[in-house]
């Protein structure tokens, strides 16, 4: 899922000074799963913003809504009336959903209520960890299903780097397992450790986010 975290409320207050009618919108998909932008979080944030703005000396009227998905145009129509009445929108969806809302309701200023942070899984209740970096050239087939791009602090394509702690954790973050240690362990368990010594073609980084904005075209799906 795409994960996000609330921005500091102080930052949101700064955005909203001068506004009077604010619509807070959430998304019931990824950001709901990571407890940042689903209905529960929207209905918590909306009254908090009202209280924060009251204490800031800039009272606002706050309305709220949670869309099924903010990243699909069809779902955005559900807030057409509320958006028309608002003079600002705060979105707690990921950056994708936020931008679609900003595009659809272009006359109304949109402010982010969250920072979009990663593509993660919920490892356990209250803990989300990265699994994918959307690098555009997946290497999981070589690395026994464990991603060294998203899960190695250095995104090493050959490892371990030598900085693995004696307890198997990363030298950069003691709460993060060294992914190359796990890759080696899985390869060993499958009796295929030799596979890691094979020369692989260079990874194509040109399809990564560093290569500029993506544009994926499928002629067979176009009308």
């Amino acid at each position: 899922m795409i994960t996000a975290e609330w921005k500091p409320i102080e930052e949101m207050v700064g955005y909203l000074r001068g506004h009077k009618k604010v619509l807070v919108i959430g998304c019931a998909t990824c950001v709901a799963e990571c407890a940042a932008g689903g209905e529960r979080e929207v209905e918590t944030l909306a009254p908090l913003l009202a209280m924060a703005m009251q204490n800031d000396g800039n009272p606002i009227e706050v309305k709220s809504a949670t869309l099924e998905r903010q990243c699909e145009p069809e779902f955005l129509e559900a807030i057409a009336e509320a958006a028309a009445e608002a003079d600002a929108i705060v979105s707690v969806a990921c950056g994708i959903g936020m931008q679609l809302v900003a595009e659809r309701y272009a006359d109304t200023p949109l402010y982010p209520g969250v920072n979009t942070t990663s593509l993660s899984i919920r490892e356990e209740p209250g803990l989300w960890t990265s699994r994918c970096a959307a690098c555009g050239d997946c290497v999981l087939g070589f690395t026994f299903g464990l991603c060294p791009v998203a899960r190695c602090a250095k995104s090493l394509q050959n490892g371990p780097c030598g900085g693995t702690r004696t307890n198997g954790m990363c030298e950069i973050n003691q709460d993060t397992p060294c992914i190359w240690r796990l890759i080696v362990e899985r390869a060993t368990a499958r009796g295929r450790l030799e596979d890691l010594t094979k020369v692989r073609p260079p990874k194509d980084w040109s399809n990564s986010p560093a290569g500029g904005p993506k544009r994926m075209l499928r002629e067979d799906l176009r009308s």
Partner: protein
Amino acid sequence: MANNSTADFQPQITLLYCRQSLAAEVKPVQGNRAGNGFSVRLVLLPCSSKVQLPHLMRLLEQGSDGLQIAACPEKACQHLVGSNRAEKRIARGRELLEQVGMGAERLGLDRGAGLSLDDLMEMAGQRAEALRALGPNPMKGV
């Protein structure tokens, strides 16, 4: 009636209490009661874990001066972890209230078993005293 002057501030407390925390012979009650220097609205819950941040924040947005949760002792929760979940939510809620300038003391949780109505009123009174320095909820009457 809303009271916005600090001098004669009579906090309006909403007390949400777990049904299981009451003594067996105590009949659950709901509704408004007057305390000594405060008033309280009693709300019955099947378990303290039923409290959710959206509900708590809405209550404060709507003008309640303070919220008190009465939960069972840690090892006595009928749902095993219900009161612990409530406690964590309250801790998070207190952090958020501090961030928005409302003051953490507007929200609190205490544990107890075999509680009487007087015990609940005492809890509400303690919450009223804890938040008295903060003054009336600025959202009152908004």
